């Protein structure tokens, strides 16, 4: 009888934190639903750009859109977007957002810029979550000198202003994308390490973990089976929010010239070019920023929605 | 009969939740007379605390008082009337929120909260908190209020009150904090104190001390008390009259001796049977079968019928209001149709199975495990 009850409770608990349950609760929230749709669209764009750029040498872009890296048959540079230009007639919608300083279509470049944003943010956030979670869990679970050493190290990483850290890192290793990814991962690690550690510290005191220890379950198994799954909710929330933060950091880095190098488009780099044309073509500065804002906001809304769903204590 | 100090009639407080409306307090009535200690008893979720909050208008959104009348010394504090479109609204005789705050809260009706660890503001010294309430409610200048505060702390047996005045709540034990909360209530010299399970969070020994302290103070000041508790031992100890609540409604209301010796409601009976007493072995305790249903979807008819050993078919149909079923001169109300005062032909109704028969004996009264 007792065992049976326990099992049903377990199932019930699992179904309550389970992905499908989460999703269905999340989808009841209109803003969260919109943010999910937005993220899906942006990710789809990024995937399209990624495949086309990496494997098809921009053939898709050239066939159906414009080549994002080259001028297209002598298009006028800094063509204003639809509505601002006086040229009505044929081809008014040819370049809906206008063209950049080399006559390249801005909309297409934004599309291909989404790839850089999503790619770096995704890779660096993932590395941050995996490494940070491991460090934090080990640190919090074992405590003692391991905790001291790891946490001091995390604190140091945390204390260097992140932009400065990544810039120094990229100055040392190079300005290529891969180093931007590693650099941004490094600054994501402390955030997850601290989060997980504090979760673990509270979970470690829970009766069921003590029971598992008393029953002789191996530490590694306790960590993997009990401690980490129970810190799941805050990690999911933080991961989502961190995606947004990392996109902002990557944009800032590109703006400063650390990140995707021309002619590969990225949103931050487009802004740094636009910055030199603020007087003749102010609208050029608007689009990439808007793209960043919408993407980051979608992740932030989703993170807030997840927090409300996963953690009823933090109702808004 | 004299005008009661506090009179609550047909009070209704409900909470709008995503799952539906929760009628946490569903039409309860009770009186408190001068100098009297009245018990409000029931399991967790019976609506005791909500009732107390409602009297003080401390119900927070999404909760709302939707009906009933509350009078204090004959003056209407709260009443409702029919609006032009048939909706129920607060009548103009009700005290405005501002008047209620200025004249009633603290001055006439003070309160002692349940959790001494959570009820004191952690960033202010206990002295400054106590002093502030005294300044507001007795309109004393700061200097005098401070003296009163220290004097009151002494009265509730806090050692060296002059020194402890400037200490922060985290420097006090739970029992000491509860004494501070009591000091806050009595220092404002109210005529009525609503005590919401003030000893539940404390050790049994400390609880005893606090109960003695309260009895002494009551003798000294003649303050009336409403004492919310789930603990019948406490009720027997300090209450003059008792109101037993079940799922937002009153089950039984009687003089404390009548309640224990001449129980009229099966729920009260069950509560008494489930409490350990020195004259009974644990085996002879009878748990109340089943658990209290949620107020969001109360059972039809009498709300206790699914757990009631005396339930009959008619209990599913009729939701009885408490009526006087006394055999003597003193009033003794019970909301159970088995009494003759309810003319619903209980005698000839078929007995029905209660929840306990299905679930066996592993479910007990859930209260007290906090």
């Amino acid at each position, binding site marked *: 009888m007792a065992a049976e009850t326990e099992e049903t409770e377990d199932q019930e608990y699992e179904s309550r934190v389970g992905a499908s349950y989460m999703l269905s609760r999340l989808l009841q929230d209109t803003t969260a639903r919109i943010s999910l749709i937005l993220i899906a669209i942006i990710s789809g764009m990024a995937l399209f750009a990624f495949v086309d750029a990496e494997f098809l040498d921009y053939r898709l872009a050239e066939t159906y859109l414009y080549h994002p890296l080259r001028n297209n048959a002598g298009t006028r540079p800094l063509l204003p977007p639809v509505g601002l230009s006086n040229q009505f007639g044929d081809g008014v919608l040819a370049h809906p957002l206008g063209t950049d300083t080399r006559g390249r279509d801005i909309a297409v470049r934004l599309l291909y810029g989404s790839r850089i944003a999503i790619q770096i943010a995704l890779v660096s956030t993932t590395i941050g979550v995996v490494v940070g979670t491991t460090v934090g869990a080990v640190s919090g679970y074992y405590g003692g000198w391991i905790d001291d050493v790891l946490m001091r190290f995390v604190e140091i990483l945390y204390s260097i202003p992140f932009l400065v850290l990544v810039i120094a890192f990229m100055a040392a290793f190079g300005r290529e994308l891969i180093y931007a990814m590693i650099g941004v991962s490094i600054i994501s690690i402390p955030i997850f390490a601290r989060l997980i550690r504090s979760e673990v510290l509270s979970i470690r005191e829970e009766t069921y973990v003590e029971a598992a220890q008393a029953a002789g379950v191996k530490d590694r198994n306790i960590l993997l089976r009990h401690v980490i799954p129970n810190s799941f909710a805050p990690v999911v929330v933080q991961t989502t929010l961190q995606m947004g933060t990392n996109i902002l950091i990557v944009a800032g880095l590109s703006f400063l010239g650390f990140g995707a190098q021309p002619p590969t488009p990225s949103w931050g780099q487009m802004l740094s070019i636009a*910055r030199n044309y603020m007087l003749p073509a102010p609208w050029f500065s608007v689009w990439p920023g808007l793209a960043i804002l919408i993407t980051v906001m979608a992740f932030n809304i989703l993170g807030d929605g997840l927090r409300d769903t996963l953690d009823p204590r933090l109702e808004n | 009969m004299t005008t009661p100090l506090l009179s609550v009639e047909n009070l209704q407080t409900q909470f709008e939740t995503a799952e539906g409306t929760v009628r946490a307090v569903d039409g309860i009535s009770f009186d408190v007379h001068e100098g009297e200690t009245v018990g409000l008893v029931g399991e967790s979720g019976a609506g005791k605390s909500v009732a107390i909050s409602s009297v003080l208008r401390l119900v927070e959104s999404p909760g709302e008082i939707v009906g009933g009348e509350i009078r204090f010394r004959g003056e209407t504090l709260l009443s409702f009337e029919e609006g032009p479109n048939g909706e129920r609204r607060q009548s103009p005789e009700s005290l405005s929120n501002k008047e209620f705050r200025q004249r009633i809260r603290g001055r006439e009706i003070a309160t002692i909260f349940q959790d001494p660890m959570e009820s004191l*503001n952690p960033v202010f010294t206990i002295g400054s908190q106590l002093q502030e309430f005294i300044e507001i409610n007795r309109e004393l200048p700061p200097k005098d209020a401070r003296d009163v505060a220290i004097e009151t702390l002494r009265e509730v047996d806090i050692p060296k009150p002059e020194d402890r005045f400037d200490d922060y709540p*985290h420097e006090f034990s739970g029992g000491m904090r509860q004494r501070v909360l009591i000091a806050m209530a009595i220092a404002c010299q109210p005529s009525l104190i609503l005590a919401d399970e003030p000893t539940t969070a404390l050790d049994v020994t400390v609880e005893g001390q606090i109960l003695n302290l309260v009895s002494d103070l009551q003798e000294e000041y003649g303050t009336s008390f409403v004492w919310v508790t789930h603990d019948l031992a406490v009720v027997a100890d300090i209450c003059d009259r008792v109101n037993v609540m079940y799922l937002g409604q009153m089950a039984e209301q009687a003089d404390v001796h009548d309640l224990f010796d001449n129980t009229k409601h099966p729920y009260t009976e069950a509560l008494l049977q489930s409490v350990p007493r020195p004259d009974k072995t644990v085996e002879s305790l009878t748990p109340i079968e089943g658990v209290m249903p949620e107020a969001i979807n109360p059972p039809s008819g009498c709300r206790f019928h699914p757990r009631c050993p005396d339930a009959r078919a008619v209990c599913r149909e009729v939701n009885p209001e408490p009526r006087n079923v006394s055999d003597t001169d003193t009033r003794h109300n019970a909301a159970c149709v088995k009494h003759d005062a309810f003319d619903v032909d209980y005698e000839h109704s078929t007995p029905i199975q209660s929840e306990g028969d299905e679930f066996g004996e592993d479910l007990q009264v859930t209260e007290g495990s906090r």
Partner: protein
Amino acid sequence: MSHLRYTIKRLLQAIPVLIGITSITFLLINAMPGSPVEVMLGPTASEELIAAAEERYGFNQPIHVRYVKYILAALGGDLGRSIHYGVPVTTKILERLPVTLLLLASSFAFALSVAIPLGIVSARRRNQPVDHGSRVVSLIGVSTPNFWIGLLLIIVFGYHLQVLPSNGLVMPLTPISEVEGATSRLDVLVQTVRSLIMPTIALGTLQMAAVSRIERSSMLEVLGRDYINLARAFGVKESVITRKHAFRNAQLPVVTIIGLQLTSALGGAVLTETVFNINGMGRLIIQAVRTQDYALIMGTTLFFGVMFVIGTLLTDLTYAYLDPRVTYEGED
């Protein structure tokens, strides 16, 4: 007394952090391609010349020896010479530091003075239009890149309306003769304020939004506490409850967030200074990296670390001041 002890304890804890920052930066710099000497002497220098110079400046010594030497010199206030500027690093940093500090101070002042009232009003009028409005504003605020805000501000107020200067920052103590069109100290101060407005908004918006979000949720949490209800039950006015009883408690998570926002604010300063061409620490470090000015990179990173440590210390002390429980926990 206990506050002093707490301060000292926190300062001591900062030492390993600073050592960590310097050693990480030192390692990174040594991983850079080329040597400082090559940069200094230019691409045409002969190998013998480079070797001689390396010998002379001690670059041929092992890295740990150089690190210890650097730390010892740094303790004596010597951070080396900037190759690019040809002056001691400390001179350059002390010239730029006040600019960045002024920018940071003004943007935090802006952020807090807007965010705290906004968050409180939002919490008090939960789910009313003013709450929805402020939540949308803070959501946009935390999602917008600060350099983009800077660009938009320049386009609108600098170029189109031409009401605010979009280049540089006039320091309040600049000699009057060096400030264009200024004939008195007051003129200079007016210029300072005018030149601060846009960078402050650009840099402060993120902080403002982050703080108002936390202020709102923190205030909501505190307003639901038992001790707030107790104060209500004893007849305390709602306005007094917000201002006195809830305010101090509600600021605790806010102070924590401000501490965490510090790194992002320092990073934001780099971008904001770039956008507005402000010669502060942020532009200095970018410049140092671009010119591979090793001593300058080390020095600026170290100072960013020190700024962070001091900032965290200030937030910790504020926390300890607000919450009487802290000092005791810290003394165990």
